[in-house]
């Protein structure tokens, strides 16, 4: 599963992995801030930013296939949003700026998550005294992506074991049912998690 892949990568071994999680998170955010704020006219900056990112990825031994697959998944979203700029005067330049900047930012986040365990990133934000409601929510998300992923996998397996005939329409219908089912299960689980949190003094 995808969530396991990032989990395994983030606990890997490389010079980048050995850096402190706080340092890497701060660097990634500084990078994103710079990429977003510096005007695109300063082309050399972006070439340098791209080179820096590639260097970090190489030093962190993040598999290229892993990165490209995820970038490809997100690229249509970026293209759709940036594409709107094409209808404005000077659209082509804006389109290029948005596409390049977004890609660099997404790349930085992917590189960070593949080289730094989520717990380290969260600890950094907590040390910065980011409001606890935000860090708690992020922590819960990290934790329950795994649980939900497992649940989905069990449901899929159970469905596959009882599916004798194929057919696209049938597959879509059962996928829709599975999504609904997962939603109901997640809502129930959320209720139980809240109770477990309250039992341990959550206010």
């Amino acid at each position: 599963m995808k969530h396991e892949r990032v989990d395994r990568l983030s606990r890997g071994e490389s010079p980048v992995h050995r850096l402190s999680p706080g340092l890497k998170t701060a660097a990634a955010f500084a990078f994103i801030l710079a990429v977003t704020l510096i005007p695109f006219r300063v082309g050399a900056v972006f070439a340098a930013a791209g080179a820096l990112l590639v260097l970090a990825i190489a030093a962190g031994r993040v598999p290229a296939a892993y990165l490209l697959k995820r970038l490809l998944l997100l690229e249509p979203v970026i293209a759709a949003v940036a594409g709107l700029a094409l209808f404005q005067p000077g659209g082509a330049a804006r389109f290029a700026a948005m596409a390049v900047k977004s890609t660099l930012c997404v790349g930085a986040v992917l590189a960070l998550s593949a080289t730094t365990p989520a717990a380290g990133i969260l600890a950094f934000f907590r040390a910065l005294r980011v409001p606890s409601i935000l860090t708690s929510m992020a922590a819960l998300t990290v934790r329950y992506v795994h649980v939900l992923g497992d649940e989905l996998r069990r449901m899929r397996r159970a469905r596959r074991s009882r599916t004798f005939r194929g057919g696209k329409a049938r597959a879509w219908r059962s996928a829709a049912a599975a999504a609904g089912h997962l939603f109901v299960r997640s809502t129930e689980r959320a209720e139980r998690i809240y109770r477990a949190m309250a039992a341990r003094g959550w206010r």
Partner: protein
Amino acid sequence: MSAPAVEIRDLRYRYPDGRVGLDGVSLTVEEGETVGLIGPNGAGKSTLLMHLNGILPDAYRGAPSIFIHGVPVEKATLLRIRREVGLLFEDPDDQLLSPTVWEDIAFGPRQWDWPEAEVEAAVGRALADVGLEGFGRLSPHHLSNGEKQRVCLAGIMVSRPKVLALDEPTRALDPRGRRRLQAILGGLDAVKIIATHDLELVAETCGRAFVLDGGKIAAAGPAVEVLADEPLMLAHGLETPHILKNGACR
């Protein structure tokens, strides 16, 4: 004479959909006791446990019907009660809510605003209590069911509760995990109330047992006597465990 560890007087509860959950439950557990709460599915065991530290009911009206060491469970005392009564839920995945084991055990103490150095020491102690030294940095996702269960227990023991309410603690454990949990529980200094279908666990660890059925206490007494009463057990969807059947009593 000091107040009993847990006292329940005529506890009644309806689920939000109107079904009767608890229909006048009264029981008393004294300091130092370990008691079993047994009964068929849907008898109200989990519901009863959730009342012990005020998770249920969702809104408090009327006079309190539960007292922990003489302190009534009501809105004003909830935070104190939740520190005194540790609740172990049935599914460890509901309870393990942090990205790492260490963070998870620190969840309670952080809610109580303990100084960070104290949190550190308490988490270390709790990990040692359940025999999981060195597991702090792992993610709950990488643990076996038995290990998850023990982390949950550590997350509760970290605030040194005086009463432990355990919901099906052996449900997902293999025999080794079960033995281990039993040994750990035996070493914990707290009143224990165990809701379970694991009747051998009740026979082996509990002094007294309460049979709950349809939201009412149907029988109560020394665990071995209650469990050995075959007609009673069968009437409530239970059975006499084999260790009691063969005359090999404890």
